């Protein structure tokens, strides 16, 4: 079973519809303790980093505890950003902090007509890690399994994560940022897999497989 976390940032309808289409067994837990019976946790979210303040306390602790026990975690968009230590968008709100680094605002480039927010379809450039990193099975990225390098996915955001060791795919707008992160049982995507047609559904399906759901 997957626990889909509702903390009031954006609405869950599209993620629910995608999970339903994939035949996933999922619930939207009412209480943090409900996460304990889940094999995978999805933290979605659209909007301002300040919204993740709703997760501070019991939710954050429950997610951290389960992830430490091996439960798979997928952060989508704002959910990916929340995996890091914090964000310049809301400096007083702390992230889950399971990945080192800080979320920063994209700069854009007026001369080259590169606008912020970064809205639309852009490519996933697989990093060497995507195919060579040692995962528990000794394979490459589990989240990107079956996808082609250069696959196009749908983004809509103004802030982004730095390219660190956890980055398995990067994307370039005015600058290059981490579009897919993966470390052991922790996964994050800056784009919206639930809005990225077949490529996005493949990624969600991979997460369900990793979660054994």
């Amino acid at each position, binding site marked *: 079973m997957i626990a889909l976390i509702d903390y009031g940032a954006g609405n869950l309808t599209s993620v629910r519809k995608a999970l339903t289409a994939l035949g996933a067994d999922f619930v939207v837990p009412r209480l943090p303790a409900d996460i304990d019976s889940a094999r995978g946790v999805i933290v979605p979210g659209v909007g301002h980093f300040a919204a993740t303040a709703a997760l501070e306390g019991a939710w954050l602790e429950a997610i951290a505890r389960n992830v430490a026990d091996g439960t798979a975690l997928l952060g989508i968009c704002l959910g990916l950003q929340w995996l890091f230590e914090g964000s310049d968008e809301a400096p007083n709100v702390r992230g889950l902090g399971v990945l080192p680094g800080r979320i920063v605002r994209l700069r854009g480039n007026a001369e080259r007509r590169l606008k912020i927010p970064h809205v639309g379809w852009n490519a996933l450039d697989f990093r060497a890690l995507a195919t060579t990193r040692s995962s528990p099975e000794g394979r490459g990225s589990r989240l990107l399994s079956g996808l082609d390098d250069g696959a196009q996915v749908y983004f809509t*955001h103004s802030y982004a994560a730095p390219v660190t060791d956890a980055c398995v795919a990067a994307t370039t707008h005015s600058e290059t940022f981490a579009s897919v992160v993966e470390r052991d049982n922790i996964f994050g995507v800056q784009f919206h897999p639930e809005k990225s047609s077949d490529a996005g559904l493949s990624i969600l399906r991979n997460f369900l497989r990793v979660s054994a759901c």
Partner: protein
Amino acid sequence: MLTKRIIACLDVRDGQVVKGVQFQQLRHAGDPGELAKRYNVEGIDEVVILDITATLESRQALARTIDAVAREIFLPLTVGGGIRSEDDAAAAVDAGADKVSLNTAALKDPELISKLAVRYGSQAVIVAIDAKRAEGRYGVYVRSGTSDAARDAVEWAREAETRGAGEILLTSMDRDGTRAGFDCEMTAAVADAVDIPVIASGGAGTFDHFTEVFTRGCADAALAASIFHYAESSVADLKRHLRAHGIPVRL
């Protein structure tokens, strides 16, 4: 590199897709769920559902239409037409819309743009501008193009951005349904004035019209209806044409 988006517009009345010429002479064009599915297979980047009647009865039909489309395709979905309040926007979002498009209501109550931007984020708020040329300017019209709003499109687009709009959907009323090509001058004038993406609409007739609006018109996305509905040309063929002309697209 960010690609140029091709958006299919479904003008919906009583749960069916219709299409007119210069906002008149509506005719049937099919079932929204079926059309959306076909467009998804062909590689459309986004879908817009415009409720062109927007009466109270049609509001429930609209929620069913949004739900039917959102079940079939996993692409960004925008809903517009008759969104006059936060409640209308919430109903569309709850039914499965990712973005709402405001037109008449935004001009009447510009605060609505900011309210929705705070509630759902700017990325979820599109301000739609219907404009036509008049004495060297671009005049804004409301109420499905029947009423002169006495505003300039460029100036209104700037204000919408300041108030929190995430994108501008700019429709040329002169070109709507004519297939005479997008109004590239007007699109470029608005695109130069704002830093948010501009979606060009109205007049798509040939593949070259899209090439023009992405180059000369400086559009970030282009929206069309008729050219796709009657299966005259496929989205995939259009994208191959654009790529061959150096326009980055998702294929």
